[in-house]
């Protein structure tokens, strides 16, 4: 067993909240720079020029790339040989969120109750997905998720007879409906298989995968990306050839009676950081 004091988790989560919101990951920067070079419409290029400039200003001035600094989503892959000491691990993550969002001047966007809607004041709680894995390390993946795009995400409980064409239609329909509301160019996370919640979690997790790394369904990812870009929605929905920067698909075994598909929409501000402790 390896002892790990939960204060280490707090400290890292805090730093990661601030970093994720101010410094875009290299893969996303590259994708936006490449989009600027390939975009065919003039208005689309002017939007992408603003996004490039925006990332520079955020870094130089140490302010968030986007004012919606999101609901904090944390994937915690915990090695089975790790023994947490010094307190409650869930509370330690939330303390990291609290400190990060307060000290980092990040927006507090969480209401404590969906009906009363009073702001929790410190962006807690986070949505935490614990996963027990072999080994004695802890991998923290943190993804602040904005809701302009989150609100356009969808789940489809398809029939096996709908097949791969049904899956493609679900993705294209979701992207088309999201249009300008979800801040294109998008990153589209797709979870196929599992059950109702498994496909949603896969779709969300897929967004954190480095944009340069292909999934096992690389050819389907490419086909969907091309079809999305043929839609003409374009940067900011103002028309153009770059509507999405990447499509990322994850799959899991499923039931004989079903074909669940989740499409998690993310904007160009697809923020994610990972650390291994």
């Amino acid at each position, binding site marked *: 067993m390896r002892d790990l004091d939960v204060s280490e988790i707090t400290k890292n989560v805090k730093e990661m909240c601030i970093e994720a919101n101010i410094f875009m990951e290299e893969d996303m920067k590259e994708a936006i720079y490449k989009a600027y070079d390939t975009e065919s419409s003039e208005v689309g290029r002017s939007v992408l020029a603003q996004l490039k*400039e*925006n990332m520079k200003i955020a870094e130089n001035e140490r302010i968030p790339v986007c004012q919606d600094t999101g609901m904090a989503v944390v994937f915690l892959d915990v090695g089975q040989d790790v023994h947490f000491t010094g307190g409650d691990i869930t509370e330690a993550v939330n303390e990291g969120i609290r400190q990060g969002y307060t000290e980092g001047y990040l927006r507090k966007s969480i209401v404590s109750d969906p009906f009363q809607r009073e702001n929790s004041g410190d962006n807690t709680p986070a949505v935490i997905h614990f996963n027990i894995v072999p080994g004695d390390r802890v991998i923290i993946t943190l993804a602040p998720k904005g809701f*302009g795009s989150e609100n356009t995400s969808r789940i489809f409980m398809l029939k096996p007879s709908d097949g791969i064409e049904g899956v493609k239609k679900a993705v294209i329909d979701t992207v088309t409906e999201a249009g300008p509301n*979800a801040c294109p160019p998008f990153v589209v996370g797709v979870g196929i298989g599992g059950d109702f919640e498994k496909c949603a979690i896969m779709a969300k997790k897929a967004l954190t995968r480095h944009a340069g790394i292909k999934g096992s369904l690389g050819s389907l990812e490419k086909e969907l990306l091309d079809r999305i870009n043929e839609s003409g929605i374009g940067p*900011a929905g103002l*028309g153009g050839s770059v509507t999405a920067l990447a499509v990322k698909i994850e799959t899991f075994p499923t039931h004989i009676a079903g074909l669940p598909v989740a499409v998690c929409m993310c904007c160009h501000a697809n923020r994610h950081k990972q650390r291994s402790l």
Partner: protein
Amino acid sequence: MQGSDTKKLNLPLDKPEAESLRAGDRVLLTGEIYAARDAAHQRMYGIISECEAAGEDPRSGLPFPLEGAAVYYMGPSPAPPGKVIGSAGPTTSGRMDKYTPGLLDMGLKVMIGKGKRNTSVNDAIVRNGCVYLAAVGGAGALLSKCIKRSEVIAYDDLGAEAVRRLYVEDFPAIVVTDSTGKCLYA
């Protein structure tokens, strides 16, 4: 979003100016705008509904005068020390659709946000000679540089959702829906 055809506009816009804009025009705005989003709209809507039920004029109860005003659907991140405001880009306008036609009928002239509006809003834009503009969603750091003053004027308890009076200079936007009802989004 500057192009060769970018128009510089001073706020407030009068009716002929608002009506001269066309979907697709790129503009740079200078002047006062009011930041208000979901919760502030809900409160304003509540005040208007209550006053109407009581047969009273709601104007005095609202946080800012609507006549000729420009509203920006935006809730900023907190201002770090020495800065006017934090990141300050638009939020999705469609969530304000329920509250919007009434505000346009009371004199609101300009809306700035991002994304699609419903037909009731489009009809109210035409009926009142208004204009709906989009700023680039997710460009909050860049847009914050155009905000020269920011002051919370109402609903302080709402935090990021409080109503703010902003003074902007050369704030870049594009006309999405013009007063003829033409909309830029396909």
